[in-house]
């Protein structure tokens, strides 16, 4: 079993008026075989958590740690973290014009596994993975994320789970902007990724909708830069009825 452990994580960003603290002490442990949902209102710092763990240069970790099987990730470069087994499915995947999906996937796979995949089986493997998320054979020749619809971007992110096979995947609002069919396809992709029970998922979402398709083992309510409530899947049901208001008010009262 592997473990992604976030302890006492404080993160700030540079703003026009100076540094601003966004994460105010996050503690969370995700083990392989577990799906954790992080739910919270807009602006609560959910995405900051995702990007900080992945190592985006915009965010500065002021204290705390993130370890994968005891190895400190925060001291590693972005690509070293990925090679350690971490994957971030982005809400807004970046366009890289002129770099084909096929070339990108092969380069990433080579970097992660340390050797180039065999041409004969690799092309088929890519096509099968893309087909599973409803992307046709011409997709691999397109420029990375360029001109993709919102749905295509998310499907492509999820296809990478299968092809790049990380230990831990952070999904940053992968459900946002998806219609009902795309949501189902993307969710099925995530479920295939976790079905063997040897992967961990941190699912960041604003809505409970995706939890009809992906059953979380744990739900964490995230407000004002930290976790304010934890529970099982039933907590999501309660949020669906009550909304975040109760937690936001409580956080303000405590501030």
């Amino acid at each position, binding site marked *: 079993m592997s473990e992604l452990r976030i302890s006492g994580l404080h993160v700030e960003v540079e703003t026009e008026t100076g540094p601003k603290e966004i994460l105010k002490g996050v503690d969370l442990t995700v083990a392989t075989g577990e799906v954790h949902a992080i739910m919270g209102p807009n602006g609560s710092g959910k995405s900051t958590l995702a990007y900080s763990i992945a190592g985006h*240069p915009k965010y500065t970790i002021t204290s705390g740690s993130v370890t994968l099987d005891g190895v400190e990730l925060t001291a590693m470069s972005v690509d070293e973290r990925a090679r350690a087994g971490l994957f971030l499915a982005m809400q807004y995947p*970046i366009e890289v014009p002129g770099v084909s999906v096929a070339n990108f996937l092969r380069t990433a796979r*080579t970097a992660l596994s340390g050797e180039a995949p065999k041409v004969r089986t690799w092309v088929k493997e890519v096509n099968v993975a893309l087909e599973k998320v409803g992307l046709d054979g011409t997709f691999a020749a397109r420029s990375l994320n360029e001109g993709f619809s919102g749905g295509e971007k998310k499907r492509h992110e999820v296809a990478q789970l299968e092809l790049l096979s990380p230990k831990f995947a952070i999904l940053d609002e992968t459900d946002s902007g998806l219609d009902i069919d795309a949501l189902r396809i993307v969710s099925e992709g995530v479920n295939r990724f976790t079905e063997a029970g040897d992967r961990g998922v941190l699912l960041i979402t604003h809505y409970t909708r995706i939890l009809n398709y992906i059953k979380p083992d744990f739900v964490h309510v995230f407000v004002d830069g930290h976790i304010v409530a934890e529970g099982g899947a039933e907590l999501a049901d309660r949020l669906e009825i009550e909304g975040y208001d109760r937690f936001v008010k409580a956080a303000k009262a405590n501030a």
Partner: protein
Amino acid sequence: MTAVSNVAEAVEANPASHLHPIPSWDVADHPLPTGREEVWRFTPLRRLRGLLEAEASGNTLEWTTQLPAGVSLAPISAERARELSVEAPIDRVSALAALNAGRGVQLDIPADTELSEPILLTGNGTGQAVAEHLVITVGPRAKATIVVRYTGSGTFADKTDISVGDGASLTFVAIADWDAGTTHGGHHAVLVGRDAQVRTVTASLGGDLIRLAENARFAGPGGSLEQFGVYFVDAGQHIEHRMFVDHNAPHTTSHVDYRGALQGQGAHSVWVGDVLIRKVAEGITTYETNKNLVLTDGCRADSVPNLEIETGEIEGAGHSSTTGRFDDEQLFYLRSRGIPEDEARRLVVHGFFADIIRRIGVPEVEARLMIAVEAELEVIVGGSAQAVSA
């Protein structure tokens, strides 16, 4: 000549653009620049060597050609070359080029000729001062691809005129593959026939200094023009492209996209993209863009897009210019998939150029330019065990 362009000439007898000198074959009409003129202010005049004060040397490039059947390439008199030209020289360098060439060379593709293979012309310099006036005439409804490649060294004064007939389709590629120390200056003029489709590709890869004025206009409505450019500027090099698209006919389109990478102390690129939309040019579409990737300290990229619009009755007009280092977000995305930083940089540069090279549509040229991109990458980020392909 169509009724519409007759009207255009009657209404606008004089060039309406404020940015462009009046063309003339007479060298005396193009005084020696001081460097303070708008069109010369970016150019290191001292390094233009003989191009501004050259005398006829009698030397020309050594040409190697591959001509499909039906296509002719032959010397013509200087007078005939003037008659067939798209426009008179717009600067002193091109006026001297035409004068000192002493004769023209005409490449003619007769009407209705459809070529499946590209026409290949390679001009090699052997270190001397040379001048050429190349006149390309593409007959109505002909379809052709022409690739002109410059190799070797020397001081090359270049006047090239490309006249494309009504309904014709032409891809014209000029690759400056010069050895170090070469100076290449000149003027390329393109006339796009009624409903003709013209794509030009200019690749400036070598030499010490390249300064090209690339002018285009239309012989009637319906013409479409695409101009792509790729350049690599290394330490001490000066590469200058001055574009001018004259939308002098209605319902014409132009799309200009030039991209360069700069690296090394004193690398200097200049791109000036002017578009004039005349009163008569209703319903046109134009977009110009220049992107410069600055890979090291000590480089300078000047990029100046200009639009002169004299009618509001257009479909669309726009331009953009970006000059910068690597995009951090692109590098983050690639690295978040485990790709090491050097490899991510390679991919981004590779993509930056592949994005435009793949639109050329001539496989030999695309392959040649991607090899040049790889060679450029070797210098910046070093060799890699892993081959990258588009």
